[in-house]
């Protein structure tokens, strides 16, 4: 049996967890390639016009995987870290089944429907039962995979802290969902341009999730979505140590459309730029905007 993992959306959040899990369970898997023009174009054709860019990317990746594996791995997650998720993660398996109905791909998923701490483990256990794996083996694999992901995140966060304290360049906080900044085709351009402009990119999503979620309560009390809570909390965590903030979103992200407005209203004494990307963007527009943003940061620094 071979499982196909689309390199899109939640892969950028849980990639290490998933791959380690399947390694431990000794299940063969393939990853779809890095997002490229062809995948995005295919995805845009398959998706509804109004759908958000990550969803289009996802559909492109799924199409690439169809025929190359037995199951396509699309988890369905309603709750994460005690809070709810964007409705897109709820409807993803059904959406994919309906979009590719003629090709009838088999979908493998774990389904977190309850808002509890053990929800994820129970969901994984259920998936393993479906795959015919013994319970003990499933538990072992889950623990190893979870730890791997945990260490990976911890290491990433620590590296970032080191960079923050050692760097003397302009530090720019990039506030973007994991699947936007992690995807080289979407967020990669911004990172490259920032490097060329001699800035250090601090990535909000790398900060410790639990800590950030707690911090976010002081900024946005009733914010419902886990990932946005994480990002807003990261702004609160890093705001005194960075020179500017980039709010990087894709069109038309439902949750970001409201949260960005809130962030812009709450943080008034730090330069903020909102970059909205869609599938047809060349990089020239972003380059100009980032150049002027760096100028603003320098100006503010010189003034103080």
């Amino acid at each position: 049996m071979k499982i196909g993992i689309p390199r899109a959306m939640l892969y950028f959040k849980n990639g290490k967890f998933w791959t380690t899990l399947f390694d431990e369970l000794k299940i063969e898997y393939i990853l779809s390639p890095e997002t490229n023009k062809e995948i995005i174009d295919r995805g845009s054709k398959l998706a509804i016009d109004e759908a958000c860019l990550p969803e289009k990317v996802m559909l492109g990746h799924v199409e690439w995987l169809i025929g190359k594996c037995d199951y396509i791995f699309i988890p369905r997650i309603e709750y994460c870290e005690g809070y709810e998720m964007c409705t897109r993660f709820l409807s993803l398996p059904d959406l994919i089944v309906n979009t590719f109905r003629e090709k009838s791909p088999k979908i493998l998923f774990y389904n977190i429907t309850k808002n509890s701490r053990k929800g994820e483990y129970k969901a994984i256990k259920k998936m393993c039962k479906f795959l015919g794996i013994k319970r003990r083996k499933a538990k072992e694999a889950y623990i190893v995979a979870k730890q791997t992901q945990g260490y990976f995140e911890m290491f990433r966060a620590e590296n970032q802290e080191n960079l923050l304290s050692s760097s003397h360049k302009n530090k720019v906080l990039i506030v973007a969902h994991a699947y936007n900044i992690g995807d080289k085709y979407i967020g990669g351009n911004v990172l490259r341009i920032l490097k060329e402009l001699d800035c250090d990119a601090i990535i909000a999503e790398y900060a410790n999730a639990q800590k950030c979620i707690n911090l976010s309560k002081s900024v946005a009390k009733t914010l419902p979505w886990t990932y946005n809570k994480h990002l807003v909390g990261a702004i609160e965590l890093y705001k005194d140590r960075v020179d500017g903030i980039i709010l990087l979103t894709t069109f038309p992200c439902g949750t970001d459309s409201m949260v960005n407005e809130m962030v812009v209203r709450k943080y008034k004494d730090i330069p903020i730029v909102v970059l909205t990307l869609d599938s047809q963007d060349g990089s020239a527009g972003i380059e100009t905007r980032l150049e002027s943003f760096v100028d603003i940061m320098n100006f503010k620094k010189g003034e103080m």
Partner: protein
Amino acid sequence: MESDVYACFPQWANYSCAFRFIFEKGFEVNYLTPPPITKRTLEIGSKISPDYVCAPFKYCMGCYIEALEAGANCLMQIFGACRLNYYGELAEQILRDMGYKFNFFNMANIDFKSPKSILENFKVINPNASLVKIGMALPVTIKIVKTLDKFEDFIRHNVGFEINDGEFDKVYKEFLEKLNKINNKKELKRLNKEYWKKLHQIPINKPDKTIKVGLVGDYYTVQEPFSNYFMEKELAKFGMEIYREMNLTNTIIHSKFKKSLKTGKKYAKHNLGATGNYTVAEAIKFAKAGASGIIQVKSFGCMPEIDTMPILQNVSKDYNIPVLHFSFDSQTSETGVKTRLEAFYDMIEARKHK
């Protein structure tokens, strides 16, 4: 009334009659019926809202501003399973930044597991609010909502066939005016009986076989006539029988969620978020009941409704029924909507004669 609080909930179909009752009889504050939505409402709303937030938020913002101008000092917002969950906090922040002074009752703040939290939040509306009085007013409020939904369902099925134009509208308007003045259950019952009879007495010319159209879509856009450019009226002009299940009765009072999940099982096995499952189940139900077409009405970028579109397309193929998708934003042109509806009608007519 002695209270100097003027509470207001954004305009949403005709439910302000029900809101008025619970606020005046339950919370014992004045209720300000929001000014009817006009083009200006939407213009103000879009100006102060984020760019690509869904249209209902823009309508709410416009309504808030117009209500504040009319003298409201206590605004409120409900919560839901999609972006609606965050409406309250953002709306409050925007209005406060603009310098308005008001109390804001945000239901997303309430922890419904703790009675203390419920009461504390109710006190935002009226510091002397009593749970007993609210509890007593609630059943009548629910009754009002049910009456409204029952009446509107009847009108929807028959308005296209009235012999004298505008008669249903006239009677219903009269009913709403009287409904806005009732004080207790007894009066509601009498009013209900009287006007239910009056509605049935309106002469109609309904053939045995009619063209039936089902309306599905997101919670606000499908229910608030202004936000869908009075689509139901336009459809009635073609002599169609209109069906719509999405209303307060079918979602909150007698939730059909589990039933919807079961109906739509073949297409969507899980909760799609917010109104997604309702939309799918309703579409299937209409298709099975022999509707000639389904119209999906939603605001641009509505998260759960976008994900139902591929599903509706599959339903359309399986049941051989046309589905028309409408996405409304603040800049949709009225003529465009009319033209598309005309084309839809022509297509249904052509299919009939095939």
